[in-house]
C-alpha cells in the first residue's frame, strides 16, 4: 500500500493522466478478447472431435455438448445473477414436452417444434420469474425445486401428454429426416450449434451493461437498486434467457430419444448435476461451465460404464455419489470453481479465461 493512497482524499488532480481503460473503444472492441478465442476454440474443437469418430463417440460428445449448453444457460442465472436454481431442468423438460407434443400430435417439423419448445420454456420462466424472483437465497432455491416437482405431477395428470407413460414417436417419423441414422446426426449438429449460441450469448451477456447489472445484483441486490439497477426486470430477463435454450435442447433431446416421460423430463438428479458442473468449472465465468460440464460428463460416462465395485458390490448410480462429493469439496475449498481459482492466481491468465 503506497503512501499516496493513504494520504486521504486528494482533490482532483487535473494534470493526472486518466488510467488506461480496460475496454477498447466500441462494442466490437469490447467483445473481441483473447478469452473469446479460447471459448470458441474449445466448443468448435469439441463439436468436430465428436463428429469424427463414428456413432459411439458422437453419442458421448452429444451429451457433453448438451450439458455444456444446459450448464452455460444455468450459469446466466446462477453465476451472473447469484440466484441458485435447483430445479432448472424443469425448462428442459417442459420445453421438451411442448415440442414433442407438437411433433407427435400436430405433426410439426423438428425445427419449428424446437423453437416452440424454447418459447414455451421462456414464457414459463417469465411467468415464474414475476412470481418467485422476489424470493431470495434459500427460499428461491426451494421454490425452484417445488416448481419442478409440481410440473412433473401436472404432466402425469394430463392424458393428452401421455400421462405417466409419456409419449413414444413412431419410428417412421424419422423417414422425413433422411432416416433414423441421419436424424441422429441432425440432432447432433443442431445441439452443437445451439450450444455454441448459448456460450456466445453467455459471453455477450457477461460483457454487456445488462450483465454488469446482473453481477451488481449478485453482489448486493439492495445496493444495486439504490444505484439504479432495475433488479426485478433484470432478474426476470436473466431467468428467461437461461430458460430459453434448455427448452430448445429438450425438444432435440427427446426427439432423438424418440420418447418422453415425466420421470426423465423432470429429473431432479440432472438438475443437481448441472449445479455441480457450473460450480466445478467456476460460476460466473463463461469458460467454467464449459469445462465443468465437459469434465463432469466425461467422468460420468467413465463411471457409468466401469465395473467399479466396493467390497464386491456393484454400486448403482455411483456418478451421483461422486457428484455429491465433488460439490462438497468445491463448496468447502474452492467455491469459485476451477476457472475462478485460475483467474485469481494470475492476472495474465485472466485475459484468456473469461
Amino acid at each position, binding site marked *: 500500500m503506497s503512501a499516496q493512497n493513504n494520504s*486521504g482524499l486528494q482533490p482532483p488532480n487535473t494534470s493526472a493522466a486518466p488510467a488506461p481503460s480496460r475496454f477498447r473503444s466500441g462494442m466490437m472492441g469490447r467483445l473481441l478478447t483473447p478469452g473469446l478465442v479460447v471459448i470458441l476454440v474449445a466448443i468448435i474443437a469439441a463439436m468436430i472431435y465428436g463428429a469424427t469418430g463414428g456413432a459411439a463417440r458422437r453419442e458421448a460428445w452429444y451429451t457433453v455438448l448438451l450439458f455444456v449448453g444446459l450448464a452455460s444457460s444455468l450459469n446466466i442465472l446462477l453465476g451472473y445473477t447469484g440466484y441458485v436454481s435447483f430445479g432448472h431442468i424443469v425448462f428442459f423438460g417442459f420445453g421438451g414436452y411442448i415440442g414433442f407434443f407438437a411433433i407427435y400430435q400436430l405433426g410439426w417439423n423438428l425445427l419449428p417444434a424446437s423453437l416452440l419448445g424454447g418459447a414455451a420454456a421462456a414464457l414459463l420462466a417469465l411467468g415464474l420469474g414475476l412470481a418467485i424472483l422476489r424470493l431470495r437465497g434459500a427460499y428461491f432455491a426451494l421454490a425452484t425445486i417445488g416448481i419442478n416437482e409440481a410440473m412433473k405431477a401436472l404432466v402425469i395428470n394430463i392424458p393428452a401428454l401421455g400421462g405417466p407413460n409419456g409419449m413414444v414417436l413412431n419410428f417412421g417419423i424419422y423417414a422425413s429426416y433422411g432416416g433414423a441414422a441421419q436424424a441422429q446426426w441432425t440432432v447432433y449438429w443442431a445441439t452443437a450449434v445451439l450450444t455454441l449460441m448459448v456460450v456466445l450469448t453467455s459471453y455477450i451477456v457477461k460483457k454487456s451493461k445488462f450483465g454488469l447489472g446482473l453481477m451488481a445484483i449478485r453482489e448486493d441486490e439492495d445496493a444495486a437498486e439504490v444505484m439504479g439497477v432495475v433488479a426485478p426486470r433484470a432478474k426476470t430477463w436473466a431467468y428467461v434467457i437461461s430458460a430459453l435454450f434448455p427448452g430448445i435442447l429438450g425438444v432435440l433431446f427427446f426427439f432423438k430419444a424418440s420418447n418422453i416421460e415425466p420421470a426423465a423430463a423432470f429429473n431432479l438428479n440432472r438438475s443437481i448435476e448441472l449445479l455441480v458442473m457450473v460450480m466445478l468449472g467456476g460460476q460466473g465465468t463463461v469458460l467454467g461451465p464449459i469445462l465443468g460440464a465437459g469434465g463432469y460428463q466425461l467422468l460420468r460416462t467413465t463411471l457409468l460404464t466401469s465395473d467399479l465395485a466396493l467390497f464386491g458390490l456393484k454400486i448403482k448410480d455411483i456418478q451421483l455419489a461422486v457428484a455429491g462429493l465433488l460439490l462438497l469439496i468445491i463448496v468447502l475449498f474452492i467455491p469459485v470453481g476451477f476457472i475462478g481459482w485460475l483467474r485469481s492466481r494470475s492476472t495474465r491468465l485472466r485475459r484468456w479465461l473469461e
Partner: protein
Amino acid sequence: MILEVKNVTKVFGGLTAVNDVSFDLEEGQILGLIGPNGAGKTTLFNCINGIYPLTKGSVIFRGQQLNGLPTYKVADLGLARTHQIVRPLNELTVRENVMVGACFGRKNMGLGQATEVADEVLAFVGLDKRAGLLANSLNVAQKKRLEMARALAAQPYLLLLDEVLAGLNPTEVTGMVDTIRKIREQGITIIMIEHIMHAVMNVSDRVIVLNYGTLIAEGTPAEVQGNQEVIEAYLGDPDLAERLLEEERG
C-alpha cells in the same frame, strides 16, 4: 427547492423513528444533518430515497413525489447516496463498481462512456490506482471513497452522504471535506449526516438537528451551535449539575 420534506413520519412497530420532520433544501446548498446516535438520521435518508415506505408525509424531489417509488426509480431521477456501513460489490473491480453507478444512474450511460466517467471519478476521489483491483481488497477508508465515487458517477442532482468521514484519520477528513466542497462546486446539492462537528459546521450552509426522531433545530451552523436544545440533546442539560448542587447546598 430541489427537495421538500413534508411531515415525514416513520414508525417501526411501536417506535417512531422519524417524527413529523419537515424541511426544504435549496439547489446548490450543503445541508448538514446532525443528531445523537439513534436520532433517526439514517432512517430519514432511507425514507427519502425509497428504502422505507413512509408512514406519513411526503418527499418531493425536483417537483416530483417520491412516495412509494422503488429505490431504482429514485436513482433514475437523479438522487444518489452512500451507505453508512459500506456496501461494495465485492467480487467486481473498483472500476466496475463505479461503472454500475454511471450505467444505471440518472444518465443511463453505455459501457464505453461509463468507463470514462468511472476513471474520471476514481481520479477525483483518489482511487485511480486501485481501479483494477477487486473492491473487497480495499480498506475501510478506501471503501468509503468508493461509495462516494459510485454515487458521483451517477451524476446526481442531489447526493446523500451518510457519515463519509467516520473512521477516517484527521488528514483524510481534511481531504474528504475538500472533496465535498468540490462536489458542491460542480453544482450538486448535498445532504450530509456527520458526527465530526468541526467538519460539518465548516462545510454546511445550513444544519438541521434530529433528536429522538424529531427535528429540534434548524439554521446556520452558528445558530445551531448556540441553540440550547441542541446542546442539551448532545450533552444533557448544562445547568442541571449546577442546580443539583444548589439544591444540595440549600
